[in-house]
């Protein structure tokens, strides 16, 4: 029953206050977690954040811009190896490696974005899948072994907490990652809300119309690739620091597929979805593994298929619908954000 009053309340609080309250709660939880959990648990949460950043990167390209990438593991690998090489070979401190990794991936992403302009839909999917399959072989290549460490990879030393803070290494790494995560998420959110963000989505929804509106689609698409790669590259850099180890076989096609799973489960074209996806990727396999060693991937596969059938908007989409339902019940006008749809509904076929 819609309320006649223009902004109704739920238990005495208006809707915007609810948003602020839930964000504050999340913030408090995020800060408290490492202080009350074991080192190992903290480590797991750190990785979840890392995956969240990686998934966000993928989502920018595929969810918001409509360019399929089945090979984002490659950018993760570039970020990871950049950090590993700089720290192990050139003794660069970890906090300096991060921006460098980001920059490297930005450039590489842009360079990938250029040929990708000519590849539509399925062709791009095939090419990026090919990239994902080829990456481990490239990393193992004999001539690059001097830098990449070949099959054995590179081991990195774990950073100490700075300024003598009373934090364990895992706790420090967690807060460091958390800070980077927040920074990246805010930056991406601002990007997507800006004019550029609207251009990005416009290209996904109707390429030709976007061109007709005067958007330089080639430039925007390449830049989107760059930003997306940068994001996932930063995640890779953080990941390498946290895990303290890079080796070619960790960056195979299944890494790229993991990110895809995280994006689908969390929700396409959703920023908060990346967080759900990251948590999913980190914790669900552990649970599944207790059933059977092969279970995690079978679960991934079934989730991929199942979500497309039953929950194409992912977790964030489902939560969004729940929130809308609450809204309708208790009526409020201020919660109408521009909703970014989950993608074009017509299939383009080669006739």
């Amino acid at each position, binding site marked *: 029953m819609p309320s006649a009053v223009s902004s109704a309340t739920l238990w005495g609080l208006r809707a915007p206050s609810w948003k602020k309250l839930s964000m504050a709660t999340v913030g408090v939880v995020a800060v408290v977690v490492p202080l009350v959990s074991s080192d190992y648990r903290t480590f797991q949460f750190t990785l979840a954040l890392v995956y969240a950043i990686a998934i966000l990167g993928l989502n920018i390209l595929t969810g918001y811009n409509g360019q*399929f990438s089945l090979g984002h593991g490659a950018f993760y690998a570039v970020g990871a190896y950049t950090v590993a090489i700089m720290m192990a070979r050139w003794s660069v401190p970890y906090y300096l490696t991060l921006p460098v990794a980001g920059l490297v991936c930005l450039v590489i992403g842009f360079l990938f974005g250029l040929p990708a302009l000519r590849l539509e839909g*399925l062709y791009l999917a095939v090419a990026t899948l090919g990239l994902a399959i*080829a990456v481990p072989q490239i990393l193992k290549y004999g001539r690059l072994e001097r830098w990449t460490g070949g099959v054995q990879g590179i081991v990195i030393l774990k950073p100490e907490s700075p300024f003598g803070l009373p934090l364990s290494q895992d706790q420090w790494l967690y807060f460091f990652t958390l800070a980077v995560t927040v920074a990246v998420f805010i930056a991406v959110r601002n990007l997507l809300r800006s004019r550029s963000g609207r251009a990005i989505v416009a290209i996904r929804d109707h390429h030709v119309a976007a061109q007709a509106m005067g958007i330089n689609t080639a430039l925007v698409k390449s830049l989107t690739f760059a930003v997306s790669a940068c994001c996932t590259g930063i995640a890779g850099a953080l990941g390498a620091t946290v895990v303290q180890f890079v080796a070619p076989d960790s960056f195979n096609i299944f890494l790229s*597929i993991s990110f895809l799973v995280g994006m689908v489960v969390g929700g396409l074209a959703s920023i908060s979805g990346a967080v759900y996806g990251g948590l999913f990727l980190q914790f669900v396999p552990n649970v599944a593994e207790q059933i059977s060693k092969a279970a995690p991937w079978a679960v991934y*596969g079934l989730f*991929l298929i199942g979500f497309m059938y039953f929950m194409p908007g992912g977790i964030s989409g489902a939560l969004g619908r729940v929130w809308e339902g609450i809204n309708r019940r208790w009526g409020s006008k201020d919660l109408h954000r521009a909703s970014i749809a989950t993608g074009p509904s017509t299939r383009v076929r080669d006739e």
Partner: protein
Amino acid sequence: MDLLIQQLVAGLATGGIYASLALSLVMIYQATGLINFAQGEMAMFSTYIAWTLVNAGMPYWPAFFLTVGCSFVGGILIERLVIRPVENAPMLSIVIVFIGLLVVFNSVAGWIWTHTIKPFPSPFPDQPLELIAGTAVPMHAVGVVVVTLAVMALLYFFFRFTPLGLAMRAAAQNPVSSRLVGIRVGRMLALGWGLAASVGAVAGMMVAPIVFLDPGMMSGILLYGFAGALLGGIGNPGGAVLGGFMVGVMENLVGTYVPFVGNELKLTVALVIIVLVVLVRPAGLFGKVSVTRV
């Protein structure tokens, strides 16, 4: 000269396998406009079924044909149960479902049969075959080429000269008009999937003796299959077959004669082929260039 002939024959053999996979991919693409990313894993799964039969004591050729039959049925079931419900969904959703299938097949195979590498028998005798100029090539390589060409010939005959084959071609080209002549388009799609799965099974069983059987066996080969299909023209079955053979030969020759590639970067060669083809001539060498109306 010896080396060249050996590499050529080896290239043709692996090319035959790539051609088979490329053909499966093209068959499904022609009928549905979709790329079956799970084609490799399906082929791998079929090969494991064959391995189980042979291990249980069944002689090779009965196991071979039984596996092909099972794969045929399996392909039909997958089309009906997994693909049909989402066939009108956005492209990204469909791609994701295919990846999901890939993952499920891969993990279930690993679960049932473990990741230990297993040898797979070859139906061809072990002695090398003497060719011209006294060079010897493995019998298996020759056998693979013969089997591949036989399968291609059978399929060609089926599609060109039988009413059912004609109906399947019609359904792939123009579903609306096909209905107007009474063709049950859904059934044709399912049949197409069944055939593609069977061809994939043959490819898997032919390659397993060379690379040994394990769940990751086909992912690289899938990439070569893509390269072959794209090189030959994704809308053109004959072209895809030729493309597959070409990729096989190219892979071997580049790997042998181009120093910095060696054996280690062969997959990268495939990737480079894919990217080059799609950039320079997306229709492939033998495909028709199509114009999309806005």
